[in-house]
């Protein structure tokens, strides 16, 4: 089974979030998703980037997005060396962003391991 990964490292700045979308659209189209699903993946990834960029980090300059491509799914994991960021995603007050991600992606995991902050997947089946 295929398992390839693409990584993107971005500064904690609003102007770079659009780059996450461009990269995401490239990876998602390689996995084989249709145009609508690619849009869903782009907005979901942006929502996480928005949250990271608005929170910012005291100690890290960048965060990392790891795209894992398999034959049947795309997994996207957000990582940062600043471990204090772990609490970013279980705050309230950002219902719009979280409700978009949970509606559009298949699995969302608010990680607690190492530098992983959040992991989400989109399955290919059902999109063909």
């Amino acid at each position, binding site marked *: 089974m295929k398992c390839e990964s693409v990584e993107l490292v971005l500064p904690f700045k*609003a*102007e770079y*979030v*659009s*780059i996450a*979308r*461009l990269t995401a659209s490239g990876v998602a189209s390689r996995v084989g998703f249709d145009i*609508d699903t690619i*849009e*869903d993946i*782009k*907005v979901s990834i*942006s*929502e996480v*980037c*928005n949250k990271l*960029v*608005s929170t910012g980090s005291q100690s890290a300059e960048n965060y990392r997005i790891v795209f894992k491509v398999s034959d049947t799914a795309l997994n996207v994991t957000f990582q940062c060396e600043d471990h204090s960021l772990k609490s970013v995603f279980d705050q309230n007050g*950002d*219902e*719009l*962003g979280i*409700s*978009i991600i949970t*509606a*559009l992606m298949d699995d969302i995991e608010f990680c607690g391991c190492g530098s992983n902050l959040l992991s989400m997947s989109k399955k290919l089946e059902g999109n063909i």
Partner: protein
Amino acid sequence: MSSELKIREEQLSDSMTVYISGEVDIYTSQALKDKLYEIIDSTPTDLVIDCRELKYIDSTGLGIFVGALKKAKQREKKICISNLKENIKKLFIITGLDKLFIIKE
């Protein structure tokens, strides 16, 4: 490639139409907020936000629409959102904002 945000306005006798084109994201949204709020403050009529050229919006932009709606309601004006692409309409439905706004084809 990364299409910037453009905002164009057209004042008719009974409504003001605001055409939003390009991408509204965390970077471009402040410009949208400033422009929309300024229009609501300065325009006596109801508002139509025409999204036929809107390629991308996320929660940042949706939040600004909600803020604009609140501001418009205080001034007893309506906001109607028209010509949403399917993908973006889906975001309005997911977030329940389709019940807050008048959404036209």
